[in-house]
């Protein structure tokens, strides 16, 4: 197992390096330097580029960047918050995104799981139909539609929840973003949970377990759910990363200072360092989650672990 993890980590490091190099070249070939504004002259721009070392050849810049990165220095922002070290910018923003993303995933998967199981147990009942309707709505509408609708009706008309994110009442002000982001994961989880549970419930070993007279709770939790979880975890993993890295539009609607909106403004403003840093964080998170999922597989289903070690 350890050997396997070590191998995966090494490949991941190389992957991240390649990604950074590719992005670095791409960013620098984009039209527009970070320092170009309606009012800037060429001399000033040259001055600025020299100040930040952007006038050096690309490989040198990349080398410098990597060297600094190893010491935890992601450079400074050129535009979004001029001269602010990016590590600080990220330190402020990442927790917000992770928090809302995790809340959404947890809410979504818990409700989705319950819905899916209930629907599977009471097939073709009104519960089943409503679960299907919800999951269908959840995948059919983009999350910003829910966000807009909720902020208008719940936030504005009814005035139950704050319209905008605020650090002083983080809990209340993240309720609406969390719910609107959770729909998609809820719908996906519900769909998979239902199919899997129907499948598992119909299998021979469940029949056997049932006939042995185990309590239905144990039957469901230990024998049923455990087997249904694998595909759910598979779809949930990338979704989690996606949600944790922030959703641009939902962030915009609720004025959430997350990394989704940071990334898009950084791309639009050509704030190279910020783009690189955000992508780096995303990649690390993605790879880490994927690794965690693989390990989790083994916990859920020992057969998978064996297969991996063989291979």
């Amino acid at each position, binding site marked *: 197992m350890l050997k396997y993890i070590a191998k995966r980590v090494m490949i991941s490091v190389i992957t991240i390096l390649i990604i950074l190099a590719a992005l670095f070249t791409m960013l620098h070939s984009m039209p527009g330097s970070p320092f170009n504004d309606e009012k800037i002259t060429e001399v000033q721009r040259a001055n600025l580029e020299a100040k930040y070392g952007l006038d050096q050849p690309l490989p040198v810049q990349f080398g410098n960047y990597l060297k600094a990165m190893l010491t935890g220095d992601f450079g400074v922002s050129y*535009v979004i918050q001029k*001269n602010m070290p990016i590590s600080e*910018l990220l330190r402020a923003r990442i927790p917000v995104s992770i928090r809302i993303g995790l809340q959404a995933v947890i809410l979504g998967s818990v409700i989705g799981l319950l819905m899916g199981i209930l629907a599977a147990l009471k097939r073709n009942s*009104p519960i089943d139909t409503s679960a299907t309707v*919800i999951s269908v709505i959840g995948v059919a509408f983009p999350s910003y539609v829910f966000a807009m609708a909720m902020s208008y009706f719940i936030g504005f008309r009814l005035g139950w929840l704050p*319209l905008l994110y605020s650090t002083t009442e983080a*809990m209340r002000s993240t309720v609406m973003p969390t719910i609107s982001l959770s729909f998609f994961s809820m719908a996906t989880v519900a769909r998979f949970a239902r199919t899997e549970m129907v499948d598992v419930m119909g299998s021979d070993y469940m029949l056997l377990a049932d006939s042995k007279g185990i309590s239905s709770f144990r039957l469901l939790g230990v024998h049923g759910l455990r087997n249904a979880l694998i595909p759910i975890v598979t779809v949930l993993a990338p979704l989690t990363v996606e949600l944790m890295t922030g959703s641009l539009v939902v962030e915009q609607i609720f004025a959430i200072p997350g990394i989704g909106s940071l990334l898009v403004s950084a791309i639009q403003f050509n704030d190279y360092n910020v783009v690189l840093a955000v992508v780096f964080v995303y990649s690390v998170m993605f790879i880490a989650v994927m690794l965690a999922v693989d390990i989790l597989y083994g916990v859920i289903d020992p057969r998978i672990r064996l297969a991996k070690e063989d291979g």
Partner: protein
Amino acid sequence: MKILKCLIPVILVLSILAGCGSGAASEASAVPEADSQAQSATAEGAEAPGGDYKVLNVGRMSELFDMDSTIATEADCLEVIEAIIEPLFVTAADGTPVNALCESYEMNEEGTEYTFHIRPEANWMNGEPVTAHDFVYAWRRLVDPGTASEYSFMMEVAAVKNATPIISGEKPIEELGVTATDDKTLFVELDRPVTYFLNLMTFPSFCPINEAYATEKGTEYALGAENLLCCGPFYMSAWDVGGNTYQLKKNPTYYDADNVKLDEINFQIIKDPQQTMLAYENGTLDYVRLSGDQIAKYETMDGFTRIEEGYLWYLSPNLNPKSEEYSCGLENENLRKAIALSYDKDVICFDILQDGSTPADFAIPNKLAIGPDGKDFRETTGTYLQTDKEKAQEYWEEAKKELGVSEVSIELLYDDSDSTPLIAQFLQSEIENNLPGVHLTLKAQPKKSRTELMQNREYQLGLTRWGPDYADPMTYLDMWTTGSTYNYGEWSNEEYDKLIDDANDALANDPAARWEALKQAEALVMEHAVILPVYQKGTAAMVRPGITGLAFFPVGVGTIYKDVDVNY
């Protein structure tokens, strides 16, 4: 029956959703009581003596990029800098400069030397007095090539001695024509008299910076509220790193603190205009800018305010394409005129934008500058390139003959900010309909890329804007001289260059003649259709009734908060 069956689950879903919402809300309302109403009135009860604590909540569209007065360029940043660190003068409601940190000043006869006496009672918040040395330090910092400030050219505009060679690195910063005679006396030498020098002094780039403090903070200076030393009516009390809020509070040590009525200003960044308005309506925000369609809705409400802006939006044709790729016939003057006359500017301003923008039949905006005769520049000049669709067709016929073609296709470059996409689409439809044979394709780019393409002259026709930096027509006319970076179309005209040269130099001591030269220069630009003006931007805002003293300006700093009072 079937339909009913289908409806049951839907209703179920909705009730679950509603249940979710109400459950969360009731649970949460156990936290501070009546929070939403209290929020706008008193953010921090502890600091609200007698409930007379006055707060203004402002909605913003973009982040606060920078608070270093020598680096900042964005309008939002300049406003905040002006509120926390005052320059020598500030703009009064009528647009004239009034004393701020400067108590009195003398000028020599030629207008090339100024002596400013700084208020003896003006202090930084750490108790140190604001001195002439602070100005010298800040001004040198502005022109220092090491700072690489985008606004260093303001020092050249002000014609402060040696500014140009210092910026280009030919002279050391110590040779800048500004010296501290003593702690409270600032002496400035100019290369030539500048009629609008005092107006320039209201610009935040000329704010003082406490040298000891800035040196101590080093690269951290102005990065965050705790790294700023203020001397203005307010100080920065909070600025979340990368966050969406920042906050100013009243500066008790300000020399004129008795006249500052506001205790706190909260700024909230919301990029979604829809949400901004909801937040205004439910009382979270008190002063917000309106955009696009919303104006029709709020126009008749109390608190609707029109703000004049100096921005001129215009089409810039590429007159000197560097390669075939960027050539499309716009080198032809008649084609340019045909296009300039073919679109209905009234529709753009009054139907599409509705924000108080006005049709532009000129190159120098309204209410930008007042001449030696005491009248606005526009009052004594003509109008040019007015919409005239028939005339446009005549020009187009002419152009076709001269170019020897029956059709041209032109790519219109624009950025995706705000209402620009609508304008671009309207222009396309108008030009194509009124000039049969002219085909326009649209190319949208993020603003940075759009500017870059235009500065590299890699475009055909661009929709762009220019905002004035100081109250003189020169802030625009300087653009179209040969070799200017902003002369996107690369127009070159000897007569024009000479007029601008004279206005800057030979005629500097004869304001009336200078004014005439500027008028002629504008006429030249318009007659050759170097730019095709579209509209002068206006803005509409909602200012909660009960707020007084918010002052808006088309030039320089957009909003001044010092005199704001709130009585809801």
